[in-house]
């Protein structure tokens, strides 16, 4: 069985890969491209740990086929920081201890980034509903919500 040749853009870089029809974008990112920041918590779109942004839309990469990446522009957690300069959301997640085990963190950061792009000044309720597709079992979400609130304040001021 020959693979499907896919040309795409990931974090601004041109990337080409071969994949099988049934492989998900998450499989491709993790197993073919070595981008293991996106995690598989469920494989069914219920936990958000594999969140990436495709053409400006937040998606679960476990619910996208690798072949669908053709011609798209993909953002993953690996592209969030600018060199060694962390994104304000990354800084605030650290400052507020918005992570314990950290396995859900890449997904939360992508979802929070998507939220603040669309809504730079969200209420607590808007933050909570925007992040409802990302499960965290460690924190009870309190510090995550506070980190996003604080990052929004910082980003507005920037």
């Amino acid at each position, binding site marked *: 069985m020959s693979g*499907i040749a896919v040309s795409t853009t990931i974090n601004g870089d041109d990337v080409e890969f071969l994949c*099988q*029809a*049934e492989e*998900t974008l998450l499989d491709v990112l993790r197993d073919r491209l070595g981008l293991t920041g996106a995690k598989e918590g469920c*494989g*069914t*779109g*219920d936990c*958000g740990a594999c*969140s990436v942004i*495709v053409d400006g*839309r*937040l*998606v*679960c990469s*476990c*619910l*996208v*086929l690798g*072949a*669908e990446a*053709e011609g798209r522009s993909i953002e993953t957690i690996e592209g969030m920081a600018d060199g060694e300069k962390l994104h304000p959301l990354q800084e605030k997640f650290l400052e507020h201890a918005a992570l314990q085990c950290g396995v859900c963190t890449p997904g939360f950061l992508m*979802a929070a980034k*998507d*939220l603040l792009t669309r809504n730079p000044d969200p209420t607590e309720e808007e933050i909570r*509903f*925007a992040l*409802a*597709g*990302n499960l965290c079992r460690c924190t009870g979400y309190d510090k995550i919500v506070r980190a996003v609130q604080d990052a929004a304040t910082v980003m507005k001021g920037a």
Partner: protein
Amino acid sequence: MQYTRPTSVNDAVSLLAEAKGTAVVLAGGSDLLVRMKGGFVEPDLIVDIKSIDGIGEIRQTADGFAIGAAVPCAVMGEDEALKNAWPGVVEAANLIGSKQVQGRCTVTGNLCNASPAADSVPALVAAGARAAIAGPGGNRTVPVEEIPTAPGKTSLAKGEIIEAILLDKRAPRSGDAYLRFIPRTEMDIAVVSAGVNLTLDEQGVVTAARVALGAAAPTVLLVAQAAEALIGTAADEDALEKLAAACSAACKPIDDKRGTVEFRKKVAGVLARRAAMIAYKRAGGK
């Protein structure tokens, strides 16, 4: 397993019609990929329809709206004209899954997945939506309630695809609403749900109504008695009570991991009543 990306409806129809083995349509994939992951379907051919010209767009026509089969629900939520005309349909579509799923899932897929608990379907049925179907034998248009025939089964013939969901232009003083019950605030499948669509006369009396229930039977239920309870009234307490009772009585639900028969019957009435009140208000009733 093969993956293909046709650029026209005709090509998609031919591919599906001529496919040997299992051929499936991929739009948002939020149901298909889950079923593939669980081993419930092992397609031989995946037909990704997103590259078909215009299928990812919402078109406003003289007759109303045509929502292309590949329009993500999130895009419906960003379309002000659609939201103003059919707020109940849009809120139903925007309840499916998470933000992540919203970026992918489609109402056409929600309809074709043929789950009794599909969120957008009761709202579409209440709205009198129709499905524009293309197939090897030509095109046809049918009411959406004729698409699902049983859990997981549709009336679409081999090679047929839904190109778009059609919603009528709004009559004046009309409103729709959709409510579902879930145990959490997000991320659940409806335990039971209700969509209500109605039109008022200038005095605020209901002249037309459609009431549909989800997760209350093997397919969505259009409850004529509930609609009749509203028509000719100003959605007063007595009418709402009758509507709720009609909905509870019409339910033929099951006991499962999401709820019991008793719970679904009771809450179907509660939700239909609450949805009717919202729809009535949206239609300009007081």
